[in-house]
């Protein structure tokens, strides 16, 4: 099973010109460590909100050249805000893509168990009438990313990962600066 960092390295290759919104904690820190870009919006708090923000951004992309808006969220975050799955399904946001890194734990707070060990998040997404791809290895994940970016329609990529964390500095920027860079990229 790959690590979150292995998966992020794959995603980084295919998203140079795609808005990406990353969840708080280790996900954003590892994502930023690969090289900061203005198309990245790093969430520093509000766990579980990145899929919702990506829905809003994707609504505004209909007349812009970007192929997708991608949210990266963990299993704990998705289970904290399953409402975003309902909204993505209801609105049928064509450019919305959610990547769920599922390590069955809250890695950023010390690895406490989440509920995901007994819940299949891909099936939850399918229950909301969303298309979902399940993967647990680098090769399948890379294919899923490449294909999903090119296809229309909301999609969830559910990735089982191990519980490894990279040590990276906190993202302690002024959030207004983080959003200004992202907004400038989008507009």
């Amino acid at each position, binding site marked *: 099973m790959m690590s979150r960092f292995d998966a992020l390295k794959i995603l980084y290759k295919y998203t140079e010109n795609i808005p990406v919104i990353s969840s708080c904690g280790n996900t954003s820190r590892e994502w930023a460590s690969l090289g900061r870009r203005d198309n990245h919006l790093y969430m520093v*708090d509000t766990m579980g*909100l990145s899929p*919702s923000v990506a829905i809003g*951004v994707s609504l*505004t992309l209909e007349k812009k050249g970007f192929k997708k808006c991608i949210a990266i969220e963990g299993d704990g975050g998705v289970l904290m805000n399953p409402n975003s799955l309902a909204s993505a399904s209801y609105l049928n946001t064509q450019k919305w893509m959610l990547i769920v890194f599922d390590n069955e734990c809250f890695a950023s707070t010390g690895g406490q168990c989440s509920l995901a060990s007994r819940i299949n998040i891909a099936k939850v997404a399918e229950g909301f009438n969303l298309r979902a791809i399940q993967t647990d290895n680098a090769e399948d994940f890379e294919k899923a990313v490449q294909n999903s970016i090119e296809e229309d329609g909301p999609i969830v990529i559910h990735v089982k990962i191990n519980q490894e964390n990279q040590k990276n500095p906190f993202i302690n920027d002024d959030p207004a600066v983080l959003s200004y860079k992202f*907004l400038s990229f989008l507009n």
Partner: protein
Amino acid sequence: MSAFQDLACEEIIKGIEDTGADYLLTLPCSTIGKVIEHFENSDTITSFPISREEDGVGIASGISLGGQFPIMLIQDTGIGNSILAITTFALAYHVPMLILVTRRGGFGEINSAVNLFSEPLPEILDAARVKTFKLDYRVPLKEWSTAIKHGAKYAKDTHRPIIVMFNIKGGAEQ
């Protein structure tokens, strides 16, 4: 529906239209059903329902970051579901949006629990430094649409979420 509520709904509709907003996100309240119904059947603003206010703040934030302007129309109880997103995302990231909030609690309220959140809510918002403008029977109804329009502009000009809260039931100050 009383005449006051009818007239208030008309003013709210006019205010929302005058903002030139692109999107209206709604969770229902019996007192402003007429407003939601109006925008469901209108081409002026894209309106859609949300299932929880926190998700709504996230979606509205994304719309705003994407260069368009959102309004969210919810009950005041929904602030309880979304205050973390309002403060640590919309406020912290300087994301403009207008949040229109109907008041629960107070005279005319028959629910025996909701008052426990709705009554202290203005103090909660003040403590959280979420700028809130309040409309009730003391503000002439013809000023409500102007307040909503200015609320939207103020959100854009000051780069943050602004709440305009209205007591549509009439009666005394809550």
